[in-house]
């Protein structure tokens, strides 16, 4: 187990507070003592795992959606593959990847990315397809090239659907990343797993769980704010 500042198992004998000794429901003292050594590193790792997975997944999904937008025949096979990936039980997928790739961050990212693809692909494609035909007609009729129409008209108009997809993907991956610990020692899953293995002491479990929930809410909120800032027109009228 990767630990920054000593064992995370509460040392009952040496310097335990009375809260820990008497096993109250939640001990702030423990959180204070273990923030720098346990919770903060786990949170940071969690954010990095999720950010990388969503960024990579978004890039792949965007490329696939743009291709499917132009060549319709790409859509069905893409939906088929991404749905298949999405339906593989996550624990199984993590374990399946260990043999060919190894129990490392790459396996973890492959698994997480594969769960973003279906959501992001579908939302980006839906967004692109929702652009009204007459808007595209006037873009073409005024002399925009395909690329100009895509960047200046189609993608901006697809933004609400794209951001809606990102919100679902981010929240999903934040939750899913808590089981990355099964193959790679990182993320908020680590303290949760530790706490579950430790019997009655609940503070670590609650603290890490609450951090995961708070992270999801925060990320979702930031995306809502981003959408408001990027698509002022969507609220006009």
């Amino acid at each position, binding site marked *: 187990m990767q630990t920054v500042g000593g064992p995370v198992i509460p040392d009952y004998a040496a310097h335990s507070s009375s809260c820990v000794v008497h096993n109250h429901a939640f001990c702030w003292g423990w959180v204070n003592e273990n923030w720098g050594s346990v919770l903060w590193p786990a949170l940071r790792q969690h954010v990095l795992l999720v950010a990388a997975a969503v960024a990579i997944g978004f890039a792949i999904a965007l490329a696939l959606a743009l291709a499917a937008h132009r060549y319709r025949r790409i859509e069905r096979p893409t939906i088929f593959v991404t749905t298949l990936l999405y339906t593989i039980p996550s624990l199984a997928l993590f374990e399946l990847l260990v043999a060919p790739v190894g129990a490392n961050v790459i396996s973890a990212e492959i698994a997480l990315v594969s769960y973003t693809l279906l959501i992001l692909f579908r939302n980006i494609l839906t967004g692109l397809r929702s652009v*009204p035909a*007459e*808007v595209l007609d*006037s873009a073409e009729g*005024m*002399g925009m090239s395909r690329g100009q129409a895509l960047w200046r008209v189609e993608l901006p*108009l697809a933004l609400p659907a794209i951001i809606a997809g990102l919100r679902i993907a981010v929240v999903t991956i934040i939750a899913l990343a808590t089981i990355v610990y099964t193959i790679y020692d990182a993320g908020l899953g680590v303290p949760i797993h530790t706490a579950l293995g430790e019997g009655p002491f609940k503070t670590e479990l609650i603290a890490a769980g609450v951090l995961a929930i708070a992270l999801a809410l925060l990320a979702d909120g930031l995306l809502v704010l981003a959408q408001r800032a990027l698509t002022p027109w969507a609220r006009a009228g």
Partner: protein
Amino acid sequence: MGAPARLMPLKTADTAHNEGPSAFAQAAELELRDVSKRYPGQREAAIGDLSLTVPAGEVCVLVGPSGSGKTTAMRLINRLIPLSDGDILIGGRSVLQREPRELRREIGYVIQQVGLFPHLTVGENIATVPRLLGWDKQRIAARVHELLALIGLDPEEMAARYPAQLSGGQRQRVGVARALAADPPLMLMDEPFGAIDPINRARLQDEFLALQQQVRKTIVFVTHDIDEAIKMGDRIAILREGGVLAQYDTPSEILTRPADEFVAQFVGADRALKRLSLTTLAELALLAPDGTDSAASAPADALRVPRETTVHDALSLLLSAGGEPLQVTDGDGRVVGLLTLAQVQQLLCDDRAPTTLKKAS
């Protein structure tokens, strides 16, 4: 606009890039030469050997029943649809030699659903083609301001709005302003007022005719509505099924002398009445108001109508007034003459329908 630009329409199309703000300088002659469009797998041509010339600065209305290919014909001009045969010349230059996107930036384009970009403000929408042409910011801002004023929208208030915050009529006007932005020598308009309610449509039509008086563009205007064609067109091209030109003439010629049964049916049995809407009272020789030159005299309480009224509307008033003469007034409300049923009859009997100044509003 600063000084009202009453500039000579150019015979040849310059590229729109060369024109600065405050300019509505360009109009180009449009010529369709034996234009055909056939779609693979279809026996009938969509457009068959269509030839017509629109003089610079005139409005040519393409009208016909559905399936007559009027929209197709229009979209061939800016190469949204590729030609099968023939050639199209704008200001004497073939469109086939032009890069399609560059060509389209020089042709104003307005469609029924307007197609404003919902994510861009009114100002940004109008700036679309100038941006594509790489105008600098100041020039674009000045142009946007000028165009909004031209279409009667307050630039300060409206430029920052989004299309969703406009009424249907305002959106349509912005669509026209957007098409005019780079001072194109030619405008294509596909049923531009088709989605507007009848009252607002009539107002927009009038506004557009007044605007055209100022900008004098060569315009190809597609509609399925013969009344709109008569109102808007300097010339009307009536297409029949298969994109065949049935008649290409001025509205009064088409109403007076329809080329064949198809045209006669298409313009309607009431074409004599329609002809009356081409003429205003100002163009008629009215009877003297004091009744000196005829037996007619009007009671003091006779209906008064401004002389800008069309004869068509005046006839309706005459009939509802029980045949009593109407008093025709000028801009200051003074009675300048009398109108009787006999004069309307005389106008209809006139084989030569009057050439009109119906564009003046």
